[in-house]
């Protein structure tokens, strides 16, 4: 998930000496189709292309349980039960297209060095999809690069999220229990 483009992902893939294919999702295609609004996620898919296990949020190769599930699956066994994850709302098709268009516009503007306008486009996308942490973090990374390089300041992110949520509640965009939006459907799962 890199709304600013593939260059942002390259150093991490190189540092990991990754030998597996890496694809770049600049416009939220995967989050749209699978229904997630945050990362990191792990999804196990069988030979027939069917999802057999998924962990949305907090998936990590440093988590022994996650690694064990992957190992079982790759050995040909049942990976075990998936973690429950609350289903977020899903946007309607028109709004999803509009969000994707705003993300593309922001990426083009960022590429032209028009950072302020890029962030404005991403903010438009976030206002349509306010629970989408991948968009929110893209804005943070553009506006506060020092909080992301050379290390990611997680305490800052938590405080920033809390402050922005409080402002969104005050502005009437979101309620205390989340951000219901009128054009969304109430389910993030697949039919």
């Amino acid at each position, binding site marked *: *998930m*890199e709304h600013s483009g593939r260059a942002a992902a390259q150093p991490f893939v190189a540092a990991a000496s990754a030998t597996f294919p890496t694809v770049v999702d600049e416009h939220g295609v995967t989050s749209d189709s*699978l229904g997630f609004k945050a990362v990191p996620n792990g999804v196990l898919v069988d030979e027939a292309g069917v999802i057999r296990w*998924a962990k*949305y949020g907090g998936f990590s190769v440093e988590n022994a349980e996650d690694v064990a599930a992957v190992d079982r699956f790759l050995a040909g066994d049942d990976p075990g039960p998936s973690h429950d994850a609350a289903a977020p709302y899903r946007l309607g098709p028109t709004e999803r297209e509009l969000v994707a268009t705003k993300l593309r516009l922001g990426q083009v503007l960022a590429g032209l060095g028009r950072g302020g306008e890029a962030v404005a486009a991403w903010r438009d996308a976030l206002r349509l999809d306010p629970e989408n942490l991948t968009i929110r973090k*893209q804005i943070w990374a553009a506006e506060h690069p020092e909080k992301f390089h050379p290390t990611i300041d997680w305490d800052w992110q938590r405080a920033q999220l809390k402050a922005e949520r409080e402002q969104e509640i005050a502005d009437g965009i979101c309620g205390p229990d989340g951000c219901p939006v009128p054009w969304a459907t109430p389910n993030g799962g697949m039919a």
Partner: protein
Amino acid sequence: MEETVTTSNTMVNVGSPLPDVVLPRLDGGELRFGELRGKRLLLFFWGSW
């Protein structure tokens, strides 16, 4: 047009087919998820932020 809404309250879509999306590869070209059929896969979704 409304999207199909299910009664499930979790998003773990175990048992559903992986959506067949096409995305640019970091090293050039494209990858269609459907091309990976026939192997067991771990898909890891992450961001640099």
